[in-house]
């Protein structure tokens, strides 16, 4: 555990001394700020509309602002994952520092966990910055905080799984760009897989749709902790980290 923290702290340090962390923080904050402003504008417009017509629509901040925003965040998050994970191992392989880690008295799994944990923490920081938007909702409205918290938990679980996959892909190459592009492709694929369920109901379509990370986020966006979906994310995380460990081992046998 001590070694995991040593590696994790080193990774976080290199995220935050390079522009990567700040770039990602800013990018995500600006994009989500725009989405928030948009969602809120539409919400206010709907409110005025319903008053003008004299009909009362049921208005709900949780349902009409928070839930769609959480769904947006889960999709936009997919675009950040490759930028966070691409350097994790590819960079060490390119510069040869992997030899230092691999010949130090630490286990492979400690190296992997440390790096993955650093990626999760950075993603957590990025998410935290968007929480500023929601503070305004609590100031001027009265939304339920529980669905929001659960939504953030879902975002973090989803990211943990994708970051594990990205970490695995980063061990496969010396080239950051290749690692990033491949991770981006996989993330994108894991998102669009659910689209088949729109027109096809056969078993294979259900399986494909089940594999989509976005499908499993829906319950979290609603504010429900679904065991099935939680298990899906946790399994995917384990799978990603397991493959990373295997890949590191094969690295030793091959290179």
């Amino acid at each position, binding site marked *: 555990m001590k070694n995991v923290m040593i590696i994790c702290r080193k990774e976080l340090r*290199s995220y935050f001394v390079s522009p990567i962390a700040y770039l990602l923080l800013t990018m995500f904050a600006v994009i989500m700020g725009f989405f928030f402003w948009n969602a809120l504008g539409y919400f206010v417009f709907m409110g005025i509309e319903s008053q003008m017509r004299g009909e009362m629509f049921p208005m709900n901040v949780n349902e009409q602002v928070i839930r769609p925003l959480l769904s947006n965040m889960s999709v936009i998050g997919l675009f950040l994952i490759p930028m966070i994970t691409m350097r994790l191992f590819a960079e060490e392989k390119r*510069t*040869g*520092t992997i030899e*230092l880690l691999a010949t*130090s008295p*630490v*286990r492979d799994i400690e190296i992997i966990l440390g790096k993955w944990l650093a990626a999760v923490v950075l993603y957590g920081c990025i998410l935290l910055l968007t929480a500023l938007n929601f503070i305004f909702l609590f100031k001027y409205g009265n939304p339920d905080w529980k669905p929001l918290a659960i939504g953030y938990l879902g975002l973090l679980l989803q990211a943990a799984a994708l970051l594990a996959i990205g970490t695995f892909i980063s061990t496969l190459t010396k080239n950051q760009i290749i690692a990033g592009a491949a991770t981006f492709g996989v993330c994108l694929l894991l998102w669009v897989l659910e689209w088949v369920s729109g027109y096809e109901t056969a078993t294979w379509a259900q399986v494909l749709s089940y594999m989509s990370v976005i499908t499993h986020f829906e319950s979290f966006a609603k504010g429900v902790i679904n065991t099935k979906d939680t298990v899906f994310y946790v399994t995917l995380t384990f799978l990603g980290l397991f493959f990373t460990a295997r890949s590191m081992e094969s690295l*030793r046998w091959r290179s």
Partner: protein
Amino acid sequence: MITVKELTKRYARNTAVDHISFEVEKGQIVGFLGPNGAGKTTTMRILTCFLPPTSGSATVAGFDVLEQPLEVKKRIGYLPETPPLYLEMRTDEYLTFVGKLKGLSGSELRQRVDAVCERCAVTDVKKKLLGKLSKGYRQRVGLAQAIIHNPEVLILDEPTAGLDPKQINETRDLIKGLAGDHTIILSTHILPEVEQTCQQVIIIDKGKLVATDSVNNLQSRARGAETVLVEVAGRNGEIDSAAVQRRLEKVTGVSRVVFKEKRQNRNIFEVESQKNLFARGDLARAVVESGWDLNELRATAVSLEKVFLQLTGGQAAAPAEETAANGARE
């Protein structure tokens, strides 16, 4: 301290290391010599537990590299060919990080960081980013990193490659200073380096062990015959090189005379004579009695280069050229 038995490493297509066995005793500096691609780096990577061997065994300080890699790693300091530096870190940050990785902490860690900075002469760049350091400093930080946890065994892969002559000397002195407390294996393809720093040599070529012996033994092994350098000068101006050569060849015990070079009216010859015949006195007499001046007469140590060429055969042509180039740089 280090025992290697029948070590073999095979890749998909080629065999990098082929049944190598050797032993290294505590406190020695061992030169690991061979042309490029001979399997030096692979052997070192197996010893540091970076690569697992295909067959055979290697033990460091009594621990097997396959069975107890963590115990081995604790006792080894390793400097790969390119120092494994995180260029965005400062020197002291980097050394602190490596120290922690190797299991140091608290005041002990701080002491060690200061101590190795002092020892490797990098104290003045402690607060500088590694990315801004010159090659020589990077190499020294790499060395500092390898000795931070005071390991019993030090494995250095071409520690002087790519340095300028001054830096090469500094690094060699540093390595020599580390002997005694540490058992050191250093790989190189530069022969003078082994002659200057090491007590024992392990020569490998194409994955196979060619020779393992002390530097002195290897030199005398190649010496079979004694070689003497003779510088002859004419008394008044010109001198007939061919005549001198003929005269030298007539001296009893001399087996071969090679004309080396001519500087103005001085001629330099390399004379090989049978061992233990001590032809030097006869040589001197022959020169003086023929009316020439004897400027210099000295026995030359056979360079490891010759041993190397003899042992590795024709294959050593390429590294020999390289060695010459390196020698020229030095």
